[in-house]
């Protein structure tokens, strides 16, 4: 197919925080953006060149990140495809800024608002347009849920009183979080309200490295259902849009499952480390041998199974910090992003026809 089903990978370089470039080692920056899809990492002895679908440099605006990354996915979502947008990167690399916007109280009207509020606006803009075009024949229902995966446990951010939830599979409905609150949405503003309310319930932690570092993965899911009546045939389409904010990638490594102590610390990010494993496994599939692998039940990858090598459109935004002190983490983020490009996704339209019996 023309577009290709591979996962799209975008890299965004944030500007160094004020004053950081001065205090930061001798060279200051560890990378440079060469073009709209290549980046050079100043590694020694040889610099490394990485190629991605799109590279946003420090000057790229929020609007242009949205247009190149999310617009297409939101459109596909309207056409019945499931879509997922991930933000990946070290804590402090600008994930929250990219996805949400600056940490002001009202991000929704802020000129620097991020991918998520813009996706809401665009989604509801498209819905309104469709409705006008089709008249009374077509109706839409949007619902959302917002969950957090922390320490391999699932919590409902829309219901802070709820205890740990479970992931289950339904033979007709696919993977779902059992008992998660679903809220009906009628406008972009409402979606944003729900999101910010849930966002406040997230688990964050301060470390001397970062003021705020998220210890959890957050998954905001919008279900778009459309119903179209056409000569007694009712066409129902439904699709999911997942917006995922991953915990800081610097804590992803599974190497140090040393004894009891480190095992516990390591567990915080098992989801993320498994994500890496799943990606590797997906890339290596092919020897066709019959085997069963016991460790594949990271909650995050399970929840997003459809988005990784299933039938959905997926893109990853890899955020990097250009400071030379972040060299190691930046390299590993770029390596991760490189591997992610190899995953292929089959996009299949989600359509079933009902009511044509008589």
């Amino acid at each position: 197919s023309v577009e290709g089903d591979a996962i799209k990978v975008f890299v965004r370089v944030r500007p160094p925080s004020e004053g950081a470039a001065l205090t930061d080692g001798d060279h200051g920056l560890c990378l440079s953006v060469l073009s709209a899809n290549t980046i050079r990492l100043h590694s020694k002895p040889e610099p490394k060149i990485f190629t991605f679908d799109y590279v946003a440099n420090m000057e790229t605006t929020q609007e242009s990140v949205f247009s190149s990354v999310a617009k297409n996915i939101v459109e596909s979502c309207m056409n019945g495809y499931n879509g997922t947008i991930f933000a990946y990167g070290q804590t402090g690399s600008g994930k929250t800024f990219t996805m949400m916007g600056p940490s002001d109280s009202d991000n929704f009207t802020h000129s620097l608002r991020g991918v998520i509020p813009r996706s809401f606006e665009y989604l509801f803009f498209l819905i309104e347009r469709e409705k006008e075009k089709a008249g009374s024949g077509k109706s839409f229902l949007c619902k959302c849920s917002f969950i957090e995966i922390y320490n391999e446990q699932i919590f409902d951010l829309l219901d802070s009183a709820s205890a740990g939830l479970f992931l289950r599979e339904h033979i007709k409905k696919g993977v779902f979080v059992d008992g998660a609150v679903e809220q009906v949405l009628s406008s972009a503003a409402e979606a944003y309200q729900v999101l910010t309310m849930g966002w406040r319930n997230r688990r964050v932690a301060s470390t001397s490295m970062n003021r705020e570092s998220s210890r959890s993965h957050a998954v905001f899911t919008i279900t778009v259902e459309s119903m179209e009546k056409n000569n007694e045939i009712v066409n129902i389409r439904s699709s999911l849009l997942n917006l995922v904010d991953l915990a800081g990638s610097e804590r992803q490594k599974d190497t140090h499952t040393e004894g009891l102590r480190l095992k516990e610390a390591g567990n915080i990010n098992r989801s993320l480390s498994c994500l890496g494993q799943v990606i590797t496994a997906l890339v290596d599939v092919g020897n066709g041998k019959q085997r069963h692998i016991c460790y594949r039940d990271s909650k995050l990858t399970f929840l997003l199974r459809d988005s990784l090598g299933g039938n959905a459109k997926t893109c990853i935004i890899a955020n990097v910090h250009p400071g030379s002190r972040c060299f190691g983490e930046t390299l590993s983020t770029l390596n991760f992003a490189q591997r992610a490009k190899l995953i292929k996704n089959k996009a299949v339209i989600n359509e079933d026809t009902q009511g044509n019996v008589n």
Partner: protein
Amino acid sequence: AAAPGAGWAAVCEKFRTARTLSAVESRKDPETEPYRSKYSARALLQEVKQLLSGGEEGGEARLLAVRRAVLEYELGVNHTDTEELSAGEEHLQRCTQLLQPHRLSPDCVSLYIQAQNNLGILWSERDEIKTAQTYLESAEALYNQYMKEDGNPPLDPSEHFMAEEEKLTDQERSKRFEKAYTHTLYYLAQVYQHLEMIEKAAQYCHTTLKRQLEYCGYYPVEWALNAATLSQYYLSKQCFMESRHCLAAASVIFSQAGQVPSAEDNETEQDQQDLRQRKAEIARCWIKYCLNLLQSARKLLEDNIGELDPDRQLELKAQRKKEEDEKEKGRKKAVLFGTSDIYDSVLAMEEKVSSVYPLDFQEAREIFLVGQNYVQEAKEFFQVDGYVTDHIEIVQDHSALFKVLAFFEEDYERRCKMHKRRIDMLEPVYADLNPQYYLLISRQLQFELADTYYEMMDLKVAIGNRLEELDSHTIKKINSLAQLAIKYYELFLDSLRNPDKVFPEELEEDVLRPAMVAKFHIARLYGKLITSDSKKQLENMQTSLEYYTFLVEYCEKYPNAVRAIETELELSKEMVGLLPTRMERLRAKLCPFI
């Protein structure tokens, strides 16, 4: 000693507090400040370092260097724990520099190895696996050299800040030293895996597991799952004896987990559920074991049309007899798990299923039955309601077990019944499954159902051929099986269509072969349909020709596809050449006067 008396006691006390803060207190830190205790520990360590540098004395340079190295080590680990890798690296480097000249002496060797371990972790976190490898391999070499040259239980690093009377026993020293080395091997296993030195990685995993058992440093459930997973590696290498050994050990160790009540004995429903799931996971590994053993045996025994070759069977049976005499010798070469009591249980577990290729139906059936039991066990947990994917995968395995057992069955009627069992388990799950969320599984089921019907039809034809004359019942049966096979192949092909219902111009690599095989089988099936109506027969031949032609034309357009379906293409070309003539003859018979 340097700094004797009260001053030294205070230093030791500070050091001890730092260690407790770091290892024990930090676990209770609030989520909002996960590193609070680590930061306090760090401050204490810095203080200790200050105090030491004050008390420098001439003759005690070595002692002082070692103590400093201990502090640098602790600070290094502290910084890496709190995500400050660069600072951590500096401290660890200083530690190894200080120890370099003394690294083979009993008071330094353990610390040196642990510092190398941590440098290995640190570099692997930066994805510099090669660098990590050099640190870890040098730790491994140091351990071996020390054990060869000295071998006495070395000092534990914490002892450098202990009063004489608190020092550890030799037994405890040895335990801690061995544990540090086990970690070296464990990290090396991961490094080798990242470097795609798969065989070496597996070997290090195996040794790590073995050492965990030896030194009692394991959680039964985790250990069992690791061993079960490792068994799957051996499966892919066709090492059935090793695979079985891992699985038997997994089952034995897992059964310990159920017996030991947890520390506080407040096992939640969730823990119970986890335990049940793990048990089912191990059962699934056993299923794969049985399946692979049967399938590999089938590969050995089949002739060029996929039937059991009796000559080959006799040959292999003779060969086995010869090998049995040498069996005991071979066995000792493998790495075995467990101390004597565990080992006996593992052996007993192993005896329940063979690890040699089954060579006849009876032997195959025994392995099949073991596999089938595990299917039941796995299904108890992985029920379709809630575990759709896992459940269906188990059903697919069950079907595969029947399929390979049927190969060993000589009676065609009975063989057919085995395939019918497969249909009966696959069809209901397929009917319920929503392809929107389970596209890949849905395709697999379509294809497998088609294939099973296809195979049954072939068997019915073979049975019919033995009769004097085909009776109407058999004809009906053959036709209906063929129609069902066609139906499922078509469903599979339809699943490849795009949203506008158009079949792809060029097929993706992962579905190329199945799609072509489906087309080819449909062509054959139309050729097999039996009808007395010549017009209908002509139509069937026409359809058959269309499908054969598709294959030939596709391969002309995309020569890359030829590789995947060489045999099928050859036969298709032949049919494309033959069919028109046959159809011409049939037409002539239909209208003899034209």
